[in-house]
């Protein structure tokens, strides 16, 4: 993947986080907005939130690490490690999301 594509995805996921993360905070913290959690859209948006936030986090970490350790080989190692960590956390998170919101 080109570097510019990765960064475009970084910005797109940033906006997705802005929307779904706000939903997450409002539904969980504001009294009177608990009904959001009873809709079907809420777990779906939280799945999007999980994927977007993990991509955004891992790409942000990658940008920092690639800048601190320049070079194409170290860049590849960093990318592979962070992709694996991201996928592991996504699978974990999705499983937990299904545990919490499943059976309804």
């Amino acid at each position, binding site marked *: 993947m080109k570097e510019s594509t990765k*960064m475009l995805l970084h*910005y797109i996921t*940033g*906006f997705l986080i*802005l929307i779904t993360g706000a939903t997450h905070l409002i539904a*969980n913290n504001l009294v009177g907005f608990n009904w959001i959690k009873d809709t079907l859209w809420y777990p779906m948006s939280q799945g999007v939130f*999980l994927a977007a*936030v*993990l991509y955004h*986090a891992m790409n*942000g*970490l990658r940008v*920092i690490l690639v*800048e*601190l*350790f*320049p*070079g*194409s080989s170290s860049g590849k190692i960093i990318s592979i490690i962070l992709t694996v960590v991201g996928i592991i*956390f996504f699978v*974990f*998170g999705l*499983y*937990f999301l299904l*545990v*919490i919101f499943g059976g309804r």
Partner: protein
Amino acid sequence: MNRRENKLGILGWLKLRGYSIEKLMYVAQRISGVGIIIFLLTHILNVGLVYAPTKELWEPPGIIGKAVLVILGIIVVFHTFNGVRLILAEYGFIVGKPRRAVYPYKMTSLSGRQRLAVYLVLAVFIIIFYFWIMVAFNLLGW
């Protein structure tokens, strides 16, 4: 490419003297980002392993957890608004048109609307910081 291209490493973040305010924002964006990542990963594991099996609502664990949450709120707000500014600057919405380099050369990307956006980010940050401190005092029970 070799290592020597970034000799200073992470210490380069501390070099703010002689740089514009955007350098400070850049460093703050990175530090806040790393802080959010640490919270995010522990939050996923914490909620998933401790709260998901019993379907309880997540509560920040103890007074330290709440204090961490207060700091997290501040840095998330900063990261969000500065991130929007960075996207606008990246795709050229606020950096202005390139100009001929005549003597008192003023970079359009470091002045005008971009600089205004920096001040706007800082202003919104300070305003929300104030309200957040009020909420935090309530939350911490002071």
